[in-house]
């Protein structure tokens, strides 16, 4: 009997299609709805210690094959976020708490609060490419990464996932530093920008942003493959997944599960249901009982 259930990064999912961090997850009611409409789990937007408004709009710019965003990590601050998680938990599926900080202590404080809020796992955002002092700058320093992961693994009871940036010279070095995590989430957005020739200006108010969507799928696949080939760690693939074939490609490259973000622009919240249904058809047609049978099969 075909089953879409997967176990990944220390938790069990009814299906492998997870809502990616930063998309449709500011408001607890939205996360609840996304779960009800078919996602296997949701990751919250990345929450920091202090309240931040993020950048002024324009915060997104759309190309044919990509979105570039520079939201600027807007978030209500950790102490105000418990309420959203409480609302979202009526969705009765796992909620993963994403957190960002510039050092070990803040990560620990955030992780502890998330655990108190009742999330199923925390996802460390070691990779936001467009906010100075957070994310990428943290995430490209293997020593700091190792320290953060070690500390949180040692202190939290819930699983710890680490989300890594592709904007590094060697993804493998960073993955090795984070290998004690229960899962690696690959990848965050690719550092990018858009210029408007008519107004002779960068479009985003922050100038720089992170590219997501179709255009980064080849980068995400490469990172997943490169890491899974060398390290024995659960991987959650993310970057440009918009249909079941994309998801299969990530799974064959080494991902046990996957996240979806930008595809909701074109396909709406229904994308999770659609992909899991299509995966089920594929599994039936190809006599695959569990997706785990396909994890990493493309690696040589």
């Amino acid at each position, binding site marked *: 009997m075909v089953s879409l259930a997967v176990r990944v990064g220390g938790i069990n999912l009814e299906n492998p299609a997870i809502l990616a961090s930063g*998309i449709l997850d500011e408001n607890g009611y939205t996360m609840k709805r996304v779960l009800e409409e078919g996602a296997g789990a949701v990751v919250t937007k990345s929450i920091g210690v202090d309240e931040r408004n993020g950048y002024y709009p324009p*915060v*997104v710019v759309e190309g044919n094959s990509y979105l570039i965003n520079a939201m600027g990590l807007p978030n*209500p*601050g950790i102490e105000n976020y418990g309420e959203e998680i409480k609302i979202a938990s009526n969705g009765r599926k796992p909620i993963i708490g994403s957190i960002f900080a510039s050092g070990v202590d803040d990560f620990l404080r955030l992780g502890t609060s998330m655990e108190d809020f009742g999330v199923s796992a925390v996802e460390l955002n070691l990779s936001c490419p467009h906010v100075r002092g957070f994310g990428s700058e943290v995430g490209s320093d293997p020593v700091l990464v190792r320290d953060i992961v070690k500390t949180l693994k040692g202190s939290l009871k819930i699983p710890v996932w680490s989300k890594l940036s592709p904007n590094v010279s060697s993804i493998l070095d960073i993955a090795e530093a984070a290998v004690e995590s229960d899962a690696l989430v690959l990848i965050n957005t690719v550092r990018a920008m858009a210029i*408007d020739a*008519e107004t002779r200006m960068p479009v985003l108010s922050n100038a720089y942003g992170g590219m997501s969507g179709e255009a980064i799928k080849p980068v995400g696949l490469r990172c997943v493959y490169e890491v899974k080939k060398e390290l024995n760690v659960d991987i959650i693939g993310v970057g440009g997944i918009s249909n079941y074939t994309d998801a299969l490609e990530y799974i064959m490259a080494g991902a046990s599960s996957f996240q979806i973000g930008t595809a909701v622009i074109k396909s709406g919240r229904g994308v999770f249901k659609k992909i899991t249904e299509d995966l089920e058809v594929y599994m039936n047609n190809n006599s695959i009982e569990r997706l785990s049978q396909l994890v990493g099969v493309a690696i040589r």
Partner: protein
Amino acid sequence: MINHLKIERKEVNTPTVSSLYFRWDRKVKPGQFVMVWVPGFGEVPMSISSIGDLKCITVKAYGDSTRKLIRLKEGDFIHLRGPYGRPFSEPEGDILLIGGGSGMASLRTLIGPRATGIIASRTSDELLFSEEFEKEKRIEVTEDGIRGLKGLVLMGLDQVNVEDYSCIYVCGPEKMLKAVYERIRGHKVRAEFSLERSMKCGIGICDSCSINGYQVCVDGPTFSIEELGEMTEFGTTKLLSSGRRVQI
């Protein structure tokens, strides 16, 4: 894709509101909006307030971006993307438009011989597009009472029998929408409300505009009275720019 469009005509509607007309070869429906980029200042959602050969946005000066917008002149360019959002439905028969403040902008494309308008504003010189309704179908309500009825929008509603209309369209501050909603929900009448929640992306990904799991930018901005009835957040809570939940 950002569209760069020349302002063909500018209309000063009230001391704080101006309309900018431009040629744009896109099909736009009543109730839809665009995201207007004001380079160096910001990007703001604006209803399309005219959908003929010349399209139009009607801007009320509020913060930096909108203040900059109403200072633009004919021949200047505006930069926008869209159109976005679910339009109003357009049934046969007489319709009632209820607009508070700049909310009239999104209702303007519905004005016509079969439309009655309740036009509300704080001060009399802020009444918007009132003169575009037929004289006898125009109910003005102002807080200063210099023009029309003195009071709030509900006072205008007292002048009509809501069940006479095939549909009621409402746009304005959420508190006003809620008041209208409470007043008419018992009645046997179709109604659609255009919501304004803080928007950042306009394309259904950032969640800043959400209400009870619906993204106002793609699932709305227009919602039926039945849909609103299910929304516990309607008129009660919203999220700030940071995502912090506050009472409305």
